[in-house]
């Protein structure tokens, strides 16, 4: 119904059933979130208002709901993939996401203004 972007290092095969091969580099994750994310009332990072969940060595954020796409989440995924070589997957829909499918925000500002 909605789609999530999950970034991580996975074993080969169907992303829905793949295991985490190694955890993401949290130094890179945290730096990118400092650059791109806002914070909710509890101080947790959000991208376009959607919470970023860091658990089990992967990062997860809402991507698509209805006809809305979370471009800030795409930007985070693209930068994280470029810096760490991680995979970008839509686990619940068994899809590897080619970075070419993601637009990100380009030159538009994100972070606090991206909510």
């Amino acid at each position, binding site marked *: 119904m909605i789609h999530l972007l999950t970034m991580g290092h996975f074993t080969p095969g169907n992303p829905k059933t793949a295991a985490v091969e190694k955890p993401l580099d949290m130094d890179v994750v945290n730096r990118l979130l400092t650059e791109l994310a806002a914070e909710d009332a509890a101080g947790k990072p959000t991208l376009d208002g959607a919470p970023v969940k860091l658990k089990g060595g992967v990062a997860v954020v809402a991507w698509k*709901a209805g006809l809305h796409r979370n471009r800030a989440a795409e930007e985070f995924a693209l930068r994280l993939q470029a810096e760490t070589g991680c995979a970008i997957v839509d686990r*619940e829909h068994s899809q590897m996401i080619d970075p070419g499918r993601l637009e990100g925000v380009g030159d538009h500002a994100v972070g606090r203004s991206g909510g």
Partner: protein
Amino acid sequence: MKRKLDVPEDPAEHAARFSIDWRDRMEAHARRRLRELGIPEDQIGALDESFGHREAAFHPREETGGGISPGRRINLNSGVFNPDLLRPMLGEEAASMWERLPLRHRMDAVIAHEYEEGKSGDHERAVIDAASTELPISERAREMLQAIAGDVKERSR
């Protein structure tokens, strides 16, 4: 002495915990509704890596409402219990309609969306097509899907 309830603040996590506790009942409920709506038997359920790679129509640890897997196999998940599933991505009209929608209509809406996404292979197309799906879903589910498809107008104003 009163025992303090351990209820997660995150509605998605709360929904997932509830779903894990009640996964067997939800598995039967989801499988039955998929059949009633005419989903072919070989498209009901997908592998759930969280529970021993079993083939299941309900995946309690997933949080998206539902999903589609190779072979156009449909599963529902804990997102059907999350009142905030569409927040903050969609506008308040669609998000609050989902919040008030009873479970059986939420399930119908998710099944129709995933069914149409399986046909077209495209989420955005499925958002549009699900609102007029040929599946015999409930009227309230159809209204929900129409509200989701129309949400772009609210955002583009």
